[in-house]
């Protein structure tokens, strides 16, 4: 029995030692072939790349840890995918990857799980990172930028296809077609990414379950595009300046149980569009200074919009589908256009906020009326109509809040330029008055 344990201990120790002996770190110089170094290495080894340019695409089929010194570039020379990973437990970090083929990726992951792609620069590529199947892929703190062509000719920054539990965190993505495209990618966590100049910043297709938090989506055609997807939480994101006429801050299309809460939707052409969005919760967002705050098409069954703050939007709603629920039965939203009082002091206005718009009705009949958006004549007519109209409301907030549930943090913005402008004009006009009166 004792002998048995001794043998076992020896085997175990032997294994341990041999494993130690295996996990080596190799240094690689730019004049060596990176692919040959990979071929020589064994599972668990670390390849440390010295500064310089490594030409040619590589294929990682072992569980290696690839680390670059500052200034390491892997150049795919515009042929195929630059880095192809087909093994699990690979980590690649601190390198610049550039020059994929016409329709290929900077990094392609195929059936590889627990891969970590961290702190890389990926540029001049069609796709940034293309993940095809695999679990728990972690894409962290990468900079991805596509080619400078029209977005219809670009690939996606991060493309997740049939993955589960991936994590996309802290990436900066610009100049791509879709920033992050989730195609049948389940339970993905997307946090603190910064996406600009893309078609859709984040695009869900059949990608159920997942969290989208604290991302910054600015100047894309559309910020968040959620299609045919269930159970996504979209929380605390900043969605700004999606100003294209075709674009939306957030578009929820044919989807179920999407939660959009505590986001800031600021200065978009249309902040939020609901088109067959079922059982969604739109709550506690700041929806401010958009051309149109809420747009709807079709029937949005069971969706409630409550406790949001609507501030300074040019048009609050453009409702082209069934009426929307602008309260959850207890609380509504804060509208800065609401003009009634709260005499019983319960924080809820004493009369419902009715949304009716002559402009909406005209627009449905003649789309060209859009040209006269907020023009003096239409604005005047709309104001007049709001006093007298008997027109049916397009939506109704039965419990409008009288104070904003959301306060936008603003820094001190008092500007002396404004003071200078004002005083110059005032001085000028007063001097002119004086001069004119004293004349002759």
């Amino acid at each position, binding site marked *: 029995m004792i002998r048995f344990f001794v043998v076992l201990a020896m085997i175990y120790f032997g294994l341990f030692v041999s494993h130690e002996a295996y996990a080596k770190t190799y240094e690689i110089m730019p004049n060596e072939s990176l692919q040959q170094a990979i071929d020589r290495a064994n599972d668990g080894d670390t390849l440390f790349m010295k500064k310089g340019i490594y030409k040619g695409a590589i294929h990682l089929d072992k569980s290696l840890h690839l680390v670059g010194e500052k200034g390491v570039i892997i150049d795919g020379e515009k042929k195929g995918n630059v880095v192809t990973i087909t093994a699990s437990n690979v980590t690649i970090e601190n390198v610049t990857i550039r020059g994929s083929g016409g329709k290929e990726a900077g990094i392609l992951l195929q059936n590889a799980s627990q891969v970590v792609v961290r702190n890389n620069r990926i540029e001049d590529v069609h796709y940034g990172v293309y993940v095809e199947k695999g679990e728990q892929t972690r894409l962290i703190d990468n900079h991805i930028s596509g080619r400078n062509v029209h977005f219809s000719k670009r690939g996606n920054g991060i493309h997740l296809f049939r993955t589960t539990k991936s994590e996309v965190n802290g990436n900066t993505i610009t100049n791509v077609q879709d920033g992050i495209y989730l195609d049948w990618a389940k339970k993905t966590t997307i946090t603190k990414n910064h996406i600009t100049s893309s078609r859709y910043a984040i695009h869900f297709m059949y990608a159920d379950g997942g969290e989208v938090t604290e991302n910054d989506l600015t100047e894309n055609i559309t910020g968040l595009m959620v299609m045919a997807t269930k159970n996504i939480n979209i929380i605390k994101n900043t969605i700004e300046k999606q*100003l*294209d*006429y*075709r674009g939306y801050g957030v578009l929820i299309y044919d989807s179920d149980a999407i939660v959009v809460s505590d986001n800031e939707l600021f*200065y978009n*052409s249309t902040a939020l569009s609901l088109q067959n969005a079922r059982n969604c919760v739109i709550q506690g967002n700041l929806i*401010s*200074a958009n*051309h149109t705050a809420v747009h709807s098409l079709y029937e949005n069954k069971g969706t409630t919009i409550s406790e949001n703050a609507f*501030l*300074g*939007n*040019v048009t609050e709603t453009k409702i082209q589908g069934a009426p929307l629920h602008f309260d959850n039965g207890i609380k509504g939203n804060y509208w800065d256009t609401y003009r009634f009082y709260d005499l019983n002091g319960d924080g809820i206005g004493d009369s419902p906020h009715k949304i009716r718009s002559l402009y909406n009705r*005209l627009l449905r*009949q*003649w*789309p*060209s*009326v*859009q*040209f*006269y*958006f*907020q*023009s*003096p*004549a*239409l*604005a*005047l007519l709309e104001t007049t109509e709001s006093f007298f109209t008997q027109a049916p409301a397009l939506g109704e907030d039965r419990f409008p809040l009288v104070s904003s549930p959301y306060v*936008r943090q*603003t820094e*001190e*913005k*008092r*500007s002396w*330029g*404004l*003071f200078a*402008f*004002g*005083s*110059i*004009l*005032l*001085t*000028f*006009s*007063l001097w*002119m*008055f004086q001069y*004119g*009166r004293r*004349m*002759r």
Partner: protein
Amino acid sequence: MKTAMKYQWMMMIRSKWLISFGVLFTILAAILVGSSGNESFSGFARSTAALLNLSLLLIPLVTLLTGSLFLSGEKEDGRLALLLTYPISTRALIGGLYIGSFLSLLTVISFGYGGASIVLFLIGGGWSSFFFLSFFLTVLLAGIFLAISMFIGLYTSNRLQAIGVSLLIWAFFVLFYEFFIVGILSMVPKGWVLPLFALSIIMNPVELVRVWTITAMKSGTIFGPQLYEWTKWAESMNGQFVFFGVACIWMVIPLIFANFLIKRGNRDA
């Protein structure tokens, strides 16, 4: 020309009418910018739209009324006949009267914008390039309608007629014009939409300034998908120059007609 200019300037700036308008404009502008002081960014938002609409509604009205009333009043009281005895050409007379009135209006508009800016500054607002743009275009709008008002003033025979014609023209340009265009648009084939819009902008200075302001702020996307290509062009340098050119034409043509009217009047007399 200088005499005529000085005369007109003196007469207008001493008018209580114009001063009370200046104060009213200042108060309204201050209320508008003050009540929406929480947005400071350079794009087209509700506060911007409101300020723009204030200018588009009030400036043509006041300019038309003051300009035409002064001239028709001069005519009615016989002072214009007196001016015509001066040894100056009719062109210099028209130019002088125009510049004199324009300076008075500029004074009032400066007062309004200056006052509103100071109010916004006091409540802690930020600078937006919209103020400058809006000021510039408002002055231009006043310049255009002043030219039209001079023509009206010379065409009509007394003050009452001048008021009537001014109000009618104001209502047409500011209130009815858009519905009129929408009415036509609903009847014509689709291909005509763009040329018709382009024509409608050229034919109405209020539209011109409205579209110009919005495109100069690069917010043309609010015009919608149908006019996307046109908006791109309008926002470009070329487009902006064309706007300026059309504005100049709008100032010059009524003055030429006014000059023609005076000359004809001279021959008749």
